[in-house]
């Protein structure tokens, strides 16, 4: 069935609504990687069996990632006319208890997290109304009051954990493709570019470059062959934000990419993934095929005259391949090495044609911005950083999780309100945000807001938003050594300063950590830092010194103790 008119889209939407809120019970089981590791796959089947035993028919669906990994497996129960109840820690053993509660029309109090009575949808003028709470349910907090969701504003994650990621109907039911329809039939490409410029959206891949500006340069570049690329090659160690978006809501990536293609004048879009990421490839391939089946990718979309195809491409899986010119080299079949960017990729990118590359999280923001308009977006976040940021909170924290917070939220808020604070008996020492080149900020700067400019001023950078919490058992010399080792292994080796320089910085920091450091080594580290930041060919080499500079700015005492007293205060370094 090809979706060609708004009536067709509304029919698809209605079909999806019937799936999301059927006449029978609907059970949603979170199936993110962390959930699957806790045997969520069995829970769905188990629940269905238990309910059948009690004569209750239920549609059991695997959904994506809500972000609250410590409560996995998460199960949501949607009973007709009743509020949606979200349950946590429903293992196969608990399934019979839950089935019993459902059969009795009760809430399984011990596992109930929150209820949802009504839900606003970002890409739809009408929201969802599940049902008003009866006395039984009012004890539960609403989604808006629930402590994990309260600080969040979920734009990129608007559908994460709420729909079956493989269902185009369910995606449409929550407003999917309404933004694409609006862009293609009611806006000119220039108006779409203008909307993104006015939204002040900054790229979420690390660079923080104003997306609208990039789109405009690409639009203005001449020629008929242009490309848009979605960078899904999340490479920072230990984080999984983009992974979550890809597996929970692949259609939002496709919609954003198609809108971008229209705005810029590109007929082809590429989604670049690391080779070996089977789950992501599977979900994206299915979504692309499904969208093409329904005519939402392909020739003459919505009868607008605009044709667009999306292709999934896999790369070798190096961190440096996340750099836009290295990524394009990979797509061209060459080794993933960056090239000098004196001529921007917006003018000469993939195969020397104008190319616009954005991070997957940036693309996931596009549909709501087009649907709701730029003013809505500028009201969220801070002046320098509009909108939100998906944060992957890991490390020594009580509840590691995935969340999307408005820019301006402080690191402390993320740690206390979303992370549940430090585990008992531990003290916060440092917060790494932005990956290896961003170093880590001390606990004294926990009030720093998540904002491109504020983090840069503090000596770190937002990067891709992976937040790693470190306590007093961590040694900052050791941590710096780890960051440098990672960057050394990931350096492509093309330019001399980065290839040789990161290795030498790592050697020096390693020396300090094992007690053979000398005071003059700190000056040598700064000399190397200056050289790399000024002369390296790409941002990997240019930002690598930041790991050292940030550590020396905020944790110099620790370095001095290692050097002068040959002691590691955290008792971590082997001396």
């Amino acid at each position, binding site marked *: 069935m090809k979706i060609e008119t708004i009536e067709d889209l509304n029919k698809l939407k209605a079909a999806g609504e019937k799936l999301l809120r059927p006449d029978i019970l609907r059970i949603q089981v979170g199936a993110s990687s962390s959930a699957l590791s806790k045997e969520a796959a069995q829970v769905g089947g188990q629940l269905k069996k238990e309910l059948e035993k009690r004569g209750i028919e239920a549609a059991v669906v695997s959904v994506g990632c809500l972000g609250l990994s410590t409560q996995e497996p998460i199960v949501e129960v949607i009973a007709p006319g009743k509020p949606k109840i979200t349950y946590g820690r429903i293992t196969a053993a608990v399934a019979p208890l839950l089935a019993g509660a459902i059969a009795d029309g009760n809430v399984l109090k011990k596992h109930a997290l929150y209820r949802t009575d009504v839900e606003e949808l970002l890409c739809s003028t009408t929201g969802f109304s599940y049902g008003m709470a009866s006395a039984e349910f009012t004890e539960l907090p609403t989604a808006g009051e629930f402590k994990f969701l309260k600080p969040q504003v979920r734009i990129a994650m608007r559908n994460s954990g709420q729909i079956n990621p493989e269902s185009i109907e369910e995606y449409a039911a929550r407003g999917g493709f309404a933004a694409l329809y609006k862009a293609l039939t009611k806006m000119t490409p220039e108006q779409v570019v203008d909307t993104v410029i006015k939204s002040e959206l900054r790229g979420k891949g690390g660079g923080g470059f104003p997306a609208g500006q990039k789109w405009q340069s690409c639009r203005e570049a001449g020629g008929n062959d242009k490309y848009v690329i979605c960078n899904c090659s999340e490479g920072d160690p230990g984080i999984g934000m983009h992974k979550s978006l890809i597996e929970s809501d692949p259609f939002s990536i496709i919609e954003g990419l198609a809108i971008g293609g229209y705005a810029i004048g590109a007929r082809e879009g590429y989604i670049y993934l690391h080779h070996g990421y089977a789950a992501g490839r599977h979900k994206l391939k299915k979504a692309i095929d499904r969208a093409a089946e329904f005519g939402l990718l392909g020739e003459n979309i919505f009868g607008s005259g605009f044709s667009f195809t999306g292709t999934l491409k896999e790369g070798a899986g*190096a961190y440096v391949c996340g750099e836009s010119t290295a990524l394009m080299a990979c797509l061209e079949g060459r080794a993933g090495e960056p090239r*000098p960017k004196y001529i921007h990729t917006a003018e000469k990118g993939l195969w020397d044609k104008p190319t616009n590359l954005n991070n997957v999280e940036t693309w996931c923001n596009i549909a709501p911005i087009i649907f709701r308009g730029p003013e809505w977006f500028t009201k969220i976040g801070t002046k320098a950083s509009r909108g939100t940021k998906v944060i992957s909170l890991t490390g020594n924290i009580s509840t590691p999780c995935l969340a999307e917070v408005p820019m301006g939220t402080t690191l402390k808020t993320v740690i206390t309100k979303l992370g549940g604070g430090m585990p008992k008996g531990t003290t916060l020492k440092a917060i790494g945000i932005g990956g290896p080149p961003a170093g880590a900020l001390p606990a004294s700067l926990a009030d720093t807001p998540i904002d491109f400019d504020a983090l840069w001023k503090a000596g770190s950078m937002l990067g891709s938003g992976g937040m790693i919490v470190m306590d007093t058992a961590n040694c900052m010399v050791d941590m710096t050594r780890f960051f440098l080792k990672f960057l*050394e292994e990931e350096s492509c080796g*093309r330019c*001399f*300063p980065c*290839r*040789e*320089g990161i290795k030498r910085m790592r050697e020096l920091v390693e020396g300090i950590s094992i007690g053979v450091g000398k005071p003059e080594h700190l000056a040598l580290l700064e000399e190397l830092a200056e050289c790399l930041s000024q*002369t390296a060919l790409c941002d990997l080499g240019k930002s690598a010194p930041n790991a050292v500079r940030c550590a020396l700015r905020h944790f110099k005492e620790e370095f001095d103790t290692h050097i002068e007293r040959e002691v590691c205060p955290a008792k971590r370094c082997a001396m």
Partner: protein
Amino acid sequence: MVKLTIDEKNIQAEKGSTILQAAKANGIAIPTLCHHEGLSPLANCRLCVVEVTQNKRTRVVTSCNYQVQEGMQVATQTGRIVSLRKTIIKLIMGRSPNVKIVRDLAAAMGIEKTPFTLENEKCILCGLCEHVCSEYIGAHAITFTGHGTGKFVSAPFCVSSADCIGCGACVEVCPARCITKKDVDDAKTYYWAESETVGPARVMYNWNARVAWKKCPKCGNAFPPPSVLPYLDKGEALPKEFFDICEKCR
């Protein structure tokens, strides 16, 4: 023509030319290591960095691949630039302390030793051999293998390169002089348990290639693969029959 200044000297340069080309044409020396006149810029060594001021904004850029623009001000010897170049040389010295060109460059900058622990690599990984083989000669016989400090140049899969034509361009362009070739009358190629004798041949030791000498269609003598050096230095394209006719007959 484009008007710019280099070290406060008024310069006129051809549109589309690079800062390095404009500097060289006006007698201003900028150190390079991975640059060759006859090839497009690689921008790998980063030694040629200069400060460029345009629209009140100053940046550090590599002069080998940055195009001249009207009104730009270039500074090639500021304290910052000299200091950056010195650090780069110290880094290369750490990797290849016994390579002559590295020592010469260091001496020219007044650097006697490097603070880094010494290795002893003969190849500085500038990329010129791979570059000339693909861009100028078109044989694509060699390439980089690996990444980071573990990189090295080799024949495909480190086996003998069947595409090598023995022209020796790589030998000519290598600044570290670490590629060796030898013309022999009687070369043997070894396979698993056998060997094959390849008559007069040029042996390219680094690529494990033995390229048979050709027979000149005009005089009938066997001749070694010709040297491309004169054409390379001027950046001139090779004539069509370059590899087919012996030098005397040409």
